[in-house]
């Protein structure tokens, strides 16, 4: 209609037909890209929420958290299902770039929950196993790169977890996390990433996260040196109990 009117203004040559065709093609492509970007943003946002849920481990039971996470995961699952029709065939790679952030944050979230539950590193196919259709087939794949970058970001969350643990008087958790991060860093270092590559840049963040956790462990040792550990833990838990009672949670 309005497009038809306007195309009449173009002189009647092959150009008009040619460009009308090109316009429709371009519009469709832009539109699909837009949808993918939106879904990726939504998945990123919801995955961040999943991570927030995980961090409540400080004040909640693991069971309660996993239950809440499973609810939130349903929403994310639906987002993946909705977008996968636009990512079929050649379009998977064509629009993957626009989906990449979503995959990475999802990886980070799933890896964090896995660490809370089992204390180990989630594998890529274990993440993908959450993305099965009715017939039990994987409907989306995460690229190796997105998996690795997501795991690199996990170290930031573990650093935060270690610091929060200290606040609760938990001395062993930071040491565990410290060792886990050291192993993770060793594995990453064997990936042979160039310093300016995406992984290379993330490795700088990982290094700094590990150093922060090492500083936490150091501080625990230094402070723990002046009095018995049990006494310290008692004070801490007393203190948190009394401040909790004020706000009733």
């Amino acid at each position, binding site marked *: 209609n309005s*497009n038809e009117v306007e195309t009449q203004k173009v002189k009647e040559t*092959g150009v008009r037909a040619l460009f009308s065709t*090109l316009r429709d093609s*371009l519009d469709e492509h832009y539109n699909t890209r837009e949808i993918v970007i939106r879904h990726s943003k939504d998945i990123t946002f919801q995955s961040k929420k999943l991570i927030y849920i995980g961090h409540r481990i400080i004040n909640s039971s693991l069971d309660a958290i996993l239950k809440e996470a499973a609810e939130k995961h349903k929403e994310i699952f639906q987002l993946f299902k909705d977008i996968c029709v636009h990512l079929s065939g*050649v379009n*998977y*790679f*064509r629009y*993957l*770039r626009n989906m990449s952030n979503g995959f990475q944050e999802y990886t980070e979230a799933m890896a964090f929950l896995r660490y809370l539950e089992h204390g180990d590193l989630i594998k890529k196919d274990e993440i993908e196993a959450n993305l099965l259709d009715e017939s039990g087939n994987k409907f989306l794949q995460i690229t190796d790169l997105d998996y690795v970058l997501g795991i690199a970001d996990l170290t930031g969350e573990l650093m935060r977890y270690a610091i929060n643990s200290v606040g609760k008087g938990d001395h062993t958790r930071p040491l565990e996390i410290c060792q886990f991060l050291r192993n993770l860093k060793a594995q990453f270092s064997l990936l042979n990433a160039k310093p300016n590559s995406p992984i290379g840049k993330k490795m700088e963040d990982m290094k700094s996260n590990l150093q922060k956790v090492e500083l936490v462990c150091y501080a625990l040792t230094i402070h723990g040196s002046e009095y018995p550990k049990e006494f310290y833990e008692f004070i801490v838990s007393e203190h948190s109990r009394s401040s909790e009672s004020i706000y009733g949670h």
Partner: protein
Amino acid sequence: MEAESNRRDEIHQLVKEYERICRNITVILNGVHSAQPGEIEAIARKALEKFSEVRQHIQSLAQIVPYQQYYRQLNLSSRYHDIWTRAVQTSNSLAAFAVYLLEERFITIEELQTLSGVPVNINNDLQEFHISVEEFLHSLINLTNELSRFAINSVTQGDYNRPIRISKFVKELHNGFQLLNLKNDQLRKRFDGIKYNIKRIEEVVYDVSLRKLNTSV
């Protein structure tokens, strides 16, 4: 990973060859800037013949790119597609220029497909190796660069009427672009280049008309 790395090396090797052919065709077509009007047609034909080699290389390329992985991301900054897109744009531009020189009209999508040996992804549904719509548009913009240079050199060669025909042609192209809803920044930015070329060509037409050098307006 090793298989992928080998494939990438192979693709790079093929694209290098492909670019070499493009440079050869470029050298042939550059001839028009110092040619007599009567020699243009022969140059265009010679360039178009060379497209059998282009076709052959694109098809070899098409065969080693794994099915549906045309846009596969290799790392954060490049995709399979990035390796050859420049070469594809160049050969499209050369094809469009050669067709223009021969018949003074736009290349059709069918012609481009025949010359390149691969389809244009008009319906966004092709799974195999293809020329994307963006690549086609980029080569039309390249064409206007070449035509603005050609308008100037035609005058030097004493062909005073050609700039007038080129001017009309490039304005049509520009009006065609106005039908598009451009979003991609790169394309939109380069689109401004068409306007600049139109102005340059109009100045040539002006110089010729002012001195009444052309045979008829």
